[in-house]
């Protein structure tokens, strides 16, 4: 871990993609880092929480991603260099803050890391392609394909942010975030914890109309300039692999992890088609792409998830080479991550060859769910033996017939309630929604309902939903599973714990105080080891005509210093 702070330029060390992003930020002299933990972005926070002090960086686990982004924005307005990290649906939460921030721009440099999770390896709620935010927020997006690029692109992102006064997004995917390879270190500047200075300038920082539309114009002008940079930048790379001058009929356009697969595929099929590797998803180097496709007969676009790149390139082709045959999502699925053999298969089809890998030949249609075939079903995750949630489940089971009660689920270890042998989850959506949806069901149907929400989720997005349920007079029974940590994502602290991301003591916000302040009349804090009391309270609360809350307080087995 400490190797990440090694100041030995030229030395190669093995880093995870996320660690390489941290190193890139450190080499850029980052001052301020904020995040809400979420896999596959969680190492950013885990590592900074250990090294921030030694590295002279301020670090916090924020209450949610929106707040994390706003904290970073404030730091940037005060002239500091900031890094904000989150997973893909964290950006959904933060998007409200992201849109105006792109209008306003930044003072100190700002880089936003967003980690997508194709195949939903550690994501329960949706498989997203964060590229879409380029269209919505106009934010420039860089896509590294390995840990070395993670570091290099992060440094470039800080430079671009400084030059163009705009936040820059680094978009990674699980196979980049959690890829390891040797990374060459550069010099680590001496950073001291420093204070920024906010200089009053409402013209710059306030989006109040009519200024807001001017800001939009300024943003679009910045993007035009960054596009010029993108056109010239060597990180949008054309690789001519063939040594002869014979013109190739086919070419490949790709970016991110897909680049690694297509290079592997070319080696396997002994092909040397030219490859345009795009580092920028937004703004795309339009001229460079047009030049690349101008004389081709056909082009193969290798990208994961939705074919955004393909759409763009089809539009460019209309101008410059209307007869160009564009291959991509006709050979590759939009669902799930790509596997190397999928890409080899697509390449083989593209050049009119047969390809079979091993004993299994697979054809990927657009909507086929891309999971590897297996002769043995994946082992489902389980609650740990001794998990305090078992006690909660046991109490609930003693009071109600699970078949006759609706159970609300949320994001955290208690997602596992969906699986056998528990099977007590009737809906699951996003952070905080276990209460929000519970309220709607209660209002609409009046059916018996118990909903679960984790402690970190409650702070993150549960509070407005609780207030809503109280004020609008519904009566779900809400069980807040307070295990004193953000367990599923790796035991990061949350506002109830009394510890900051840098390990300093701080005021612990009591969940029961918030519950009371939200106007809940019937609430109790119970250690579920007291089964009798827990059972009696469930029975009692289920009869109430108002919202009731049980705060089930018992630490996760892995919480130290209980």
């Amino acid at each position, binding site marked *: 871990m400490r190797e990440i702070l090694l100041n030995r330029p030229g030395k190669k060390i093995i880093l995870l993609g996320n660690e390489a992003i941290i190193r890139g930020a450190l080499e850029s002299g980052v001052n301020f880092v904020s995040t809400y933990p979420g896999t596959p972005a969680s190492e950013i926070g885990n590592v900074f929480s250990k090294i921030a002090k030694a590295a002279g960086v301020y670090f916090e686990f924020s209450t949610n991603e929106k707040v994390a982004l706003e904290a970073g924005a404030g730091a940037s307005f005060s002239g500091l260099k900031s890094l904000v990290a989150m997973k893909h649906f964290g950006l959904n939460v933060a998007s409200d803050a992201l849109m105006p921030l792109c209008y306003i721009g930044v003072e100190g440099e700002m880089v936003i890391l967003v980690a997508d999770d194709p195949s939903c390896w*550690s994501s329960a709620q949706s498989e997203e392609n964060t590229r879409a935010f380029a269209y919505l927020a106009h934010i420039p997006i860089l896509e590294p394909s390995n840990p070395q690029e993670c570091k290099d692109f992060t440094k470039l992102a800080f430079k671009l942010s400084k030059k163009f006064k705009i936040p820059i997004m680094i978009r990674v995917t699980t196979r980049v975030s959690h890829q*390891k390879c040797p990374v060459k270190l550069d010099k680590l500047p001496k950073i001291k914890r420093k204070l920024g200075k906010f200089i009053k300038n409402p013209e710059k920082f306030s989006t109040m109309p009519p200024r807001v539309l001017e800001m939009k114009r300024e943003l679009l002008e910045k993007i035009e300039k960054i596009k010029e940079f993108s056109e010239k930048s060597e990180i949008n790379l054309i690789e001519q692999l063939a040594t002869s001058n014979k013109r190739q009929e086919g070419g490949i356009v790709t970016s991110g992890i897909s680049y690694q697969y297509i290079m592997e595929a070319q080696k396997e099929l002994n092909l040397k088609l030219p490859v345009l590797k795009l580092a920028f998803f937004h703004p795309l180097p339009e001229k460079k792409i047009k030049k690349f496709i101008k004389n081709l007969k056909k082009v193969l676009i290798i990208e994961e998830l939705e074919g955004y790149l393909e759409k763009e390139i089809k539009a460019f082709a209309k101008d410059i080479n209307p007869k160009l045959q564009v291959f991509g999502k006709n050979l590759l699925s939009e669902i799930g991550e790509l596997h190397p053999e999928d890409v080899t298969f697509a390449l083989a089809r593209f050049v009119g060859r047969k390809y079979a*890998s091993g004993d299994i030949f697979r054809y990927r249609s657009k909507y086929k769910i891309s999971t*590897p075939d297996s002769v043995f079903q994946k082992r489902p995750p389980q609650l*740990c033996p001794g998990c305090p949630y078992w006690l909660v489940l046991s109490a609930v089971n003693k009071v109600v017939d699970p078949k006759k009660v609706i159970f609300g689920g949320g994001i955290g270890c208690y997602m596992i309630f969906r699986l056998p042998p528990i099977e007590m989850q009737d809906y699951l959506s996003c952070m905080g929604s276990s209460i929000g949806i519970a309220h709607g069901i209660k209002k609409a149907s009046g059916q018996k309902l118990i909903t679960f929400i984790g402690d970190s989720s409650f702070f993150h997005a549960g509070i407005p939903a609780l207030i809503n349920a109280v004020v609008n007079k519904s009566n779900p029974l809400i069980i807040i599973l307070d295990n004193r940590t953000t367990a599923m994502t790796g035991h990061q602290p949350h506002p109830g714990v009394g510890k900051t991301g840098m390990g300093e003591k701080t005021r612990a916000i009591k969940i029961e105080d918030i519950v009371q302040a939200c106007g809940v009349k019937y609430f109790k804090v119970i250690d579920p080891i007291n089964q009798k009391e827990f059972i009696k309270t469930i029975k009692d609360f289920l009869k109430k005509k108002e919202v009731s809350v049980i705060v089930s307080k018992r630490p996760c087995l892995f919480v130290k210093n209980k």
Partner: protein
Amino acid sequence: MEKNFNLFINGVGGQGILTLLQIIAEAALMERYDVKTSELHGLSQRGGSVEVHLRFGKTIYSPLVSQGGADLIISLEAQESLRGCHFASKETIFLVNDFFIPIPNRKIKDKKEILKEIKKFSQKIIFIPASEICQKGVGAKITAGIFLLSYASVNNLIPLKPHAISKAIKKVIPKKYLDLNLKTFKLAK
């Protein structure tokens, strides 16, 4: 080494697979190979199936092993070895811990069934009671992965010298557990 080496390791969350992966990656780097790994964090832990990939050689692009492309499959739990099958070809060596972790509400697959299934892919199967050997030898079955790796190195199933492996163990494993792991390393013959 002409060809790249493709390794697939799997098992169950909590068996120390990510640490094992780090050790092999460091050893490969010490032997001056290009190396890439791919691992999964988060939901895949909590006693679920864990699968990691590691490739090394002259130039490595993909961090993932292709279907049918594994040279060696190390499974830290016997039933999980079946999840390695689609990475196997006739040339693939299966190095399997003869150790079973049951799955709730599912019938356990016995060794005979597993062997029958793997043999459809490859005949080169080595079943070793690594957990048991470690329990007897060093008093902890958690080091089964280190044992299997050391076994693979000593028996030339992986082109990394035992010396590099032990050096990588020293680099990666915290002091507190180093002795235990080095002792495990020496158990392999």
